[in-house]
């Protein structure tokens, strides 16, 4: 009997593999000619990034697409990386077997939760062109690279290989390739440009993988290069055990039956995160299961009881059993500075703001939200902003409207932060792009197509909070910009227009050109500070100049203070006007008395920074009269910074690269942020 059943099951499976593909190609990503190509690139690039991350190698990826037969829509895709390579004997498993891979059961953040992997590409290629996929793989410990053509025996769910041999792999410059993988495959597909394209996919990938160097050669032969902007690899993520809040009945049952633990307390402690001994005992108590019970011999109603205890449906003294949150070191956020750099390299911009929230938990799954916003110079002002969605560093390119991340953006009233938005709802308009990244051990999608995140009010709320916080940074930036524009106008008025009026009127009347100082003082009647922070391409340093103009009829004296990124390792150079350190990240200059019409210029250079690290210097003043373009120093706040410094020196290690001592100064009425860390504008 059982023999027949097994045979039937086997038969079923044989038919199923290719049929399965055919029937499910829409959610495997092969439902249209355009999308098939994107999916193929995606599988190849995801594999490369994951392999490099695993092997702690800074990835260098090259993707080339060539049109082979335009009429028949045959395209060749070649993808090459500098990853660890695959040992010769494993190649057929990786490329020729569906659902192969160790990450399938591990609970941690990983890219490869999508699709069926590179095997799908091999299959699609075979189904549409009848050709095998050519693989070249070199591992560091071997002198030569393995080459092989991989196909699929869809009946047996097994790889077929041919032309297997070894060769020396030379780089184009004649050097030997140390390690890496190259996949060449032909398929029926269509190359398109636009929002859903290979180009866009790689561009988005490069934004959230700032440690990767990606080159793309499009079918027209044009090379697009997104350079690496950081040498720092993503943090190595730890696998975690499932948390009781996130477990399903079937999984629980399987875990029990597969368990070799002798008693339930041990089983619970060993297999779940967030489980203390006390919690394990309490859970068993409310589930009415003996602590000594063998997991293997649990009865069906006991699984259910245990699950109910997990989910707080069975209570102890009317309270659910308290569980610890799962650890969050299984997540790898991109982090603010790197998002900023990633965005800056693909979009030419003047302003980027980012926000990474602290990790948190929903339904037993750790997750973390990151957002970024960039103003692009070349983008259209009257079009909706570009929405860049990512889940675990993987770009989401389809079903934008149905995605939780889009809904979070739409739920924010962006008008209060300075973007256009009809009725305060929907995707805002403006020359900007908004990035949202969800990192989680268990990303919930709306469907198998895995292109849109499913609704979850906790995640939505968390995303909203991140966006709101980021919005405040944006508003602050725009307000400052507006103020600067106004000051600029005043300068144009007194420097250009008034002199022109004086000259022209004198000329028409045939009289001497009058003295202007009086009129200018009257018109401005203010002290103005002008700040300029620019990247000097030649010296590779940041030049800062602060000019103070006294456009009043009286002598004035001030102390000027400026923020600078001392904590980020910047060094102040060529500061010819002296001054002294007021606090970490705050420098002060006590100025001589400034007579009416006089100006004073402070100049210095910051070294040890990269382009885009420091673009705005906040200027503060001490003195009785207001200074346009500077903020009155809040002494209490300065005290606070000094106090924190005193405390901070003892535990500098953990806080030094994340904390932001400059921020609190800019919004003096607000206490320094605790918990959340932001680069710009957060903390309110």
């Amino acid at each position: 009997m059982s023999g027949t059943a097994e045979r039937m099951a086997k038969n079923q499976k044989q038919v199923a593999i290719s049929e399965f593909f055919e029937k499910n190609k829409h959610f495997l990503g092969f439902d249209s000619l355009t999308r098939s190509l994107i999916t193929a690139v995606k599988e190849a690039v995801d594999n490369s990034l994951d392999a490099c991350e695993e092997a702690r190698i800074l990835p260098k990826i090259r993707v080339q697409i060539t049109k082979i037969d335009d009429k028949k829509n045959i395209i060749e895709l070649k993808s090459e990386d500098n990853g660890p390579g695959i040992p010769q004997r494993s190649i057929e498993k990786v490329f020729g077997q569906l659902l192969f891979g160790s990450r399938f059961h591990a609970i941690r953040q990983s890219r490869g939760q999508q699709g069926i992997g590179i095997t799908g590409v091999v299959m699609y290629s075979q189904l549409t062109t009848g050709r095998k996929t050519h693989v070249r793989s070199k591992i560091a410990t071997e002198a030569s690279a393995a080459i092989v053509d991989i196909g699929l025996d869809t009946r047996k769910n097994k790889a077929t290989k041919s032309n297997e041999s070894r060769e020396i792999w030379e780089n184009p410059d004649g050097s030997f390739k140390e390690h890496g993988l190259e996949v060449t495959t032909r398929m029926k597909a269509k190359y398109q440009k636009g929002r859903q394209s290979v180009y866009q996919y790689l561009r988005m990938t490069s934004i959230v993988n700032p440690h990767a160097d990606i080159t793309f050669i499009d079918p027209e032969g044009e090379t697009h290069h997104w350079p690496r902007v950081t040498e720092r690899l993503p943090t190595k993520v730890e696998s975690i055990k499932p948390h009781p809040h996130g477990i399903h009945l079937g999984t629980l049952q399987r875990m029990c039956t597969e368990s070799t633990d002798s008693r339930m307390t041990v089983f619970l402690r060993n297999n779940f995160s967030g489980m203390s001994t006390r919690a394990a005992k309490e859970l068993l108590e409310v589930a009415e299961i003996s602590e000594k019970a063998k997991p293997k011999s649990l009865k069906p109603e006991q699984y259910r009881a245990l699950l109910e205890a997990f989910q707080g449906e069975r209570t102890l003294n009317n309270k659910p059993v308290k569980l610890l949150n799962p650890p969050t070191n299984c997540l790898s956020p991109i982090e603010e500075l790197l998002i900023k750099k990633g965005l800056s390299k693909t979009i030419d911009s003047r302003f980027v703001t980012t926000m990474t929230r602290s990790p948190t938990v929903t339904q037993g799954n750790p997750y973390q939200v990151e957002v970024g916003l960039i103003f692009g110079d070349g983008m259209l002002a009257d079009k909706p902003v570009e929405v860049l969605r990512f889940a675990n560093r993987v770009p989401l390119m389809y079903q934008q409207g149905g995605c939780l991340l889009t809904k979070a953006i739409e739920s924010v009233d962006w008008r209060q932060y300075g973007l256009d938005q009809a009725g305060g709802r929907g995707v805002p308009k403006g020359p900007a792009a908004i990035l949202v990244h969800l990192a989680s051990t268990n990303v919930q999608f709306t469907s198998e197509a895995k292109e849109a995140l499913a609704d979850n009010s906790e995640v939505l709320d968390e995303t909203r909070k991140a966006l709101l916080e980021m919005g405040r940074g944006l508003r602050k930036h725009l307000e400052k910009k507006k103020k600067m524009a106004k000051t600029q106008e005043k300068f144009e008025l007194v420097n250009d227009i008034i002199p022109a009026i004086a000259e022209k009127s004198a000329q028409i009347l045939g009289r001497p050109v009058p003295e202007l100082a009086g009129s200018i003082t009257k018109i401005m009647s203010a002290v103005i500070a002008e700040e300029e922070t620019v990247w000097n391409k030649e010296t590779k340093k940041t030049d800062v100049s602060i000019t103070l103009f006294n456009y009043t009829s009286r002598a004035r004296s001030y102390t000027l203070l400026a923020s600078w990124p001392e904590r980020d390792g910047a060094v102040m150079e060529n500061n010819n006007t002296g001054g002294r350190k007021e606090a970490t990240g705050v420098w002060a200059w006590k100025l001589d008395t400034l007579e009416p019409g006089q100006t004073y210029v402070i100049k210095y250079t910051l070294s040890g920074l990269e382009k885009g690290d420091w673009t705005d210097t906040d200027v503060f003043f001490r003195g009785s009269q207001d200074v346009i373009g500077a903020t009155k120093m809040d002494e209490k706040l300065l005290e606070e910074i000094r106090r924190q410094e005193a405390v901070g020196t003892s535990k500098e290690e953990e806080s030094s690269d994340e904390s932001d001592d400059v921020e609190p100064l800019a919004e003096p009425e607000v206490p320094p942020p605790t918990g959340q860390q932001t680069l710009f504008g957060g903390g309110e």
Partner: protein
Amino acid sequence: MMSRTHTNDETKIALHEVVAEMYDKIVKGEAPTMTLPVRTKTNIAFDDKLGVYKYGKKRSTRDATSLGSAKQLLRALHVVEFIEEMIDAGKSSTLREMYYISEAWGLGKFGSQNESNNLAEDLEVVTKCLREDFKLRPEEDGARMIGNLTLRERNRRGEWMRINARDDVGDSGYGVPYNVELEKIELLEHDIKFIMAIETGGMFDRLIENGFDEDFNCGLLHLKGQPARSTRRILKRMSEEWDLPVVVFLDGDPWSFRIFASIAYGAIKTAHISEYLATPSATYLGITADDIMAYDLPNDDLSPRDVEALKAELSDPRFADPWWQEQINMMLELGKKAEQQSLAKYGLDFVTDTYLPEKLAELGLA
């Protein structure tokens, strides 16, 4: 009638006063300024002596404390300089030409032609000179005229030509030039009982085709919508010099009411020269709000903009008299407007056989 223009020297002196105001302020250590009457409906008042609406006493000071107004002052200086150059060289230019010439004025260049037109008017208002004094010509062409009236126009070669606006012209009538002052046009003689000013070209041509001018012994003047200065000026001259009644035949909508106000009482934008342009004796013939009802004319609903315009007219001092208040309120109540040519509902001859004779009879003109 005296010429209303100024001599070149008078013009220059007046312009220099504007420049001196700015210069003196700078010498005093203050922001340069330009003082001019407020040019909105809140600052027009009826002048009993002249019988037209003029600017009132409200003045505004444009001072150079903001970038926008400072640029305006600089532009004014460039325009003054440009006018002086033209006076000295015996040239003239159109407003549009001035706008393009301003391209070379650097910081003082105009952003749009509207700006340059407004500034020319500002200078007129401040100096009490006319743009003809400034040697500036409008783009707008004057109207067409037909009827048994004779005038003399000096042509480009400086020769006087005698023209009868019935016998010496084609179907399009006599074209009114932009300058209709004494040095250009003399009104000689006529055999008409009144002048009818008409808003649309379609109606003007209808009356000509139907021989209305001869049947009713009148002159017909096509306004071309909001009439140009020269159109209003020649209408005023004919009315005063020949002592002729003027009737105005327009569409029945809020905008036509404004056209009539600018003809009879003076336009807000040109209130500084209302006494030269307005014809206080002009009468509004139609289409009135009650015509729409009485003649059951095909009509359109008032648009929100129409309603807004009518409401604004209620507080416009030029429409303060009871007849206008009644007309405006009636149109608001009706919520309808009608075009002149809607009279064609009753046939092509209805306007000349029935409507106009009935309306003119009320005025004792037919």
